[in-house]
């Protein structure tokens, strides 16, 4: 007789707890026998560290991959993407094609382009952003590496210098970025889902590229946590727009083709970033992970990946937000813990389409390989994006993977 799922969390957020309780799951402490642990990134380190000697049993699931930082730490992500590009180049894959300036045509994914290591730099107060203006090193501030304790050997601090996008797409004269949620249930084979209800986060202050404005934190940083303290923060809409609003606006003002292409490219970026880290990820069968992808769009409608969060914020800034995050967790749990029953890690991690909720299959490596892997290369090469991938419909088809 199946018992009730026993859950633990060290993140006291109502959107989580309400979801557990509505399934009739039972709360326990981490010292007891638990089936489901929604943990913070601190805790996952402890669970999977060599010293802990923790062994997870088949009926236990956690919400992080042990070495997720390969994706979420900026310096490691850059490293992995570079390695991935080199491999593709070696294989002679057309995906690794470059243009006449030496820029990657299809793999110029992200904002970061340079990685520096420096030893023995005295610690400075944490600055949230690093900037170069175009290609001149006008302003350069060290970033405190989020997870520096992972670097086991010595006191190395990693500096990431990022290319500052000074021509972001503005709507109503305002800068914004996109937050999209992506659920990964397994890395090998890669199976990931995109949450349909992402959102745009707008700056409360008008964007101007002038240098005097560079010091104004509110103009450039669109993270809600910082915007919340700006004078103009509004608690009804929270400066957020749904992705469908964005889509409506872009289709109406720029046309359908370029908008579909933009969304296609966004999906592309996400899948490529996951593929890049897949080989080095510890694909532990007890794990799944819900990432928060931050993407910015420039005025040529090209998307750029800013960063990936392993622990996207579950705090709600507005009523709509609370509903969204509640549903996000709900749909995530439906996929990760099928039927809400005691998990068995031996299952094939292939949920039926009905439980996806607001998730859509973004990429399913098994499915893709079934259709022939070289199709991906062919369709990408021809620059054709295949049948419309842009429309998010719950038709049951894997509509986001036209370029398998």
């Amino acid at each position, binding site marked *: 007789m199946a018992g009730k799922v026993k859950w633990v969390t060290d993140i006291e957020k109502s959107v989580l707890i309400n979801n557990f309780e509505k399934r009739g799951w039972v709360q326990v402490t981490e010292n007891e026998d638990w089936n489901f642990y929604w943990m913070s990134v601190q805790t996952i380190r402890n669970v999977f560290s060599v010293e802990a000697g923790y062994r997870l049993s088949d009926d236990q699931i956690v919400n992080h991959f042990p070495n997720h930082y390969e994706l979420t730490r900026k310096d490691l992500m850059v490293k992995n993407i570079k390695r991935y590009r080199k491999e593709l180049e070696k294989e002679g894959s057309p995906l690794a094609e470059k243009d006449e300036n030496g820029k990657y045509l299809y793999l110029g994914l992200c904002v970061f382009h340079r990685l520096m290591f420096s030893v023995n730099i005295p610690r400075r107060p944490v600055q949230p952003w690093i900037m170069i203006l175009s290609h001149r090193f006008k302003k350069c501030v060290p970033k405190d590496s989020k997870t520096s304790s992972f670097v086991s050997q010595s006191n190395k601090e990693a500096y990431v210098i990022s290319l500052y996008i000074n021509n972001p797409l503005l709507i109503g004269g305002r800068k914004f970025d996109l937050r999209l949620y992506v659920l990964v249930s397994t890395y090998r084979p890669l199976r990931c889902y995109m949450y349909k209800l992402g959102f745009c986060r707008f700056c409360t202050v008008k964007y101007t590229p002038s240098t005097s404005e560079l010091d104004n934190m509110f103009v450039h940083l669109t993270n809600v946590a910082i915007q919340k303290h700006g*004078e103009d923060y509004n608690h009804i809409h929270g400066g957020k727009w749904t992705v469908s609003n964005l889509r*409506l606006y872009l289709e109406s*003002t720029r046309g*359908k083709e370029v908008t579909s292409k933009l969304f296609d490219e966004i999906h592309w970026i996400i899948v490529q970033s996951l593929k890049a880290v897949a080989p080095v990820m510890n694909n532990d069968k007890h794990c799944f992970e819900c990432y928060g992808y931050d993407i910015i769009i420039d005025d040529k409608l090209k998307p750029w990946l800013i960063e990936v969060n392993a622990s996207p914020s579950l705090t709600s800034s507005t009523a709509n937000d609370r509903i969204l995050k509640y549903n996000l967790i709900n749909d995530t749990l439906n996929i990760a813990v099928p039927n809400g029953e005691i998990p068995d890690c031996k299952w094939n991690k292939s949920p039926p389409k009905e439980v996806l909720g607001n998730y859509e299959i973004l990429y399913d490596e098994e499915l893709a390989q079934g259709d022939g892997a070289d199709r991906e290369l062919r369709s990408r090469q021809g620059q054709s994006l295949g049948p419309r991938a842009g429309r998010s419909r719950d038709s049951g088809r894997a509509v986001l993977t036209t370029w398998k």
Partner: protein
Amino acid sequence: MLQEESDLSLIIAQIVQKLKGSNLYSQLERQAWASLQRPEIKLESLKEDIKEFFKISGWEKKLQNAVYSELSVFPLPSHPAAPPEHLKEPLVYMRKAQGSWEKRILKSLNSMCTELSIPLARKRPVGEQKELLNKWNEMGTDEPDLSLFRPVYAPKDFLEVLINLRNPNYENGDSLSFRTHLGLIQVPLKVKDIPELKECFVELGLNIGQLGIDDSTQVPPELFENEHVRIGQKVLAQQDSAAAQQYIRQGSPTALRAELWALILNISSQPEDVLYYEQLKTNVIQHDLLVDSLIYKDVKLTASNDDYYFVFEDYLYQVLLCFSRDTSVLSHFAFNSASPPKSYIRGKLGLEEYAVFYPPNGVIPFHGFSMYVAPLCFLYHEPSKLYQIFREMYVRFFFRLHSISSHPSGIVSLCLLFETLLQTYLPQLFYHLREIGAQPLRISFKWMVRAFSGYLATDQLLLLWDRILGYNSLEILAVLAAAVFAFRAVNLMEVTSLAAAEKKNHLRELKSMSLDDIVKIHGLFWLF
């Protein structure tokens, strides 16, 4: 037959008169002169050749569009001996009611002015002008102290006026019969019934494909959507206003909407239009008007708090402040029952030589006015084009939603149409709501006054406004309002108070409703 002919020649004469003063006329003249250089223009057949040239070069189409535009906007001429106020509003009691309503508004404005000791208008000092010019694109960041300002009126104040409208020549009789109108509006205006609506809105019939309904998941795109898009592109290529108006009755694809609306409204964004807008902007910079504060307050109260429109706050100021100063808007008062308020230079009260229209465009904004502009920001991101589109939408449609008239698209008729539909086809619901003191119109009035802006999700709203343009009528607002009640009939039957019927959840539900839900799913089959 003779009457029709003379009516027609009267209309033609009026339109010719109107167009002669327009830019298009001078352009056509210039084109005609220039065409004399062309080899195909021969002296013997000068007239025919030039006509042919106009046809081929697309100028004839432009003229057609202009004529069509005039026909859509300008009311048909009535009896030649009818005085101009009949063109504004034929019924005396309506004119009188509008007149007293205007007096009240103006009084309210003047007293606010006196209380706060702020002039209705003042010239800005140079320093302030410079500052405003610098901040032109981000007026939203300004935080002027608006706490002492209040909107001049809100829709519910206006509703009270409409409820008290009476035709002095009409005696209802004391005895209640099944004919008695149970609603709030008690004037005997003719409104369409279901068969007439069906005839009028024939393209909304169930057997004809609709965007917003037939492009949803269940219907494969090959069946309707793709073909519809193809036709839309063709219509745009032809640049034909009348065809566009017909086409859009079935809804517009998102990518084509901006252009289609511009075509239907005959807006072409010439350099002189941009210049005109810049001139208005200069007027804003130079002079400060009291209504500006009313506009600020309205935007801050409505659009800034809206999930969809908060992003465009600055555009709203750029459009509305210019709108207040646009004297070309005054010409629409010829067919608007309202008249522009007059104000007098200080100390010269009553002396006509010192009278000016205030605000310059004659339109005093009320609470929610900025929501007429907000949805347009999803379509046009260039301020002067956005401005032109809004202005044209206002003088064709929106003004009818806040003035008292007998026009079939006027708010009074819309209210009556709404109530009549509900009473005729959902009598049980109507009676129940009336019994609990929740007259349906009290709930739906604000939806109609705002043309549902802020009450429907933007993509649905734009589909609704497609139909307003397509049918050149606002009646669809009343039909939709009735449909919402039909859709929610079951829930509403259980409600026990006006407050419960109106509570916030109800509002949020409206925003998550799609026309698909309302039209297809429950009980709207009887309407179509």
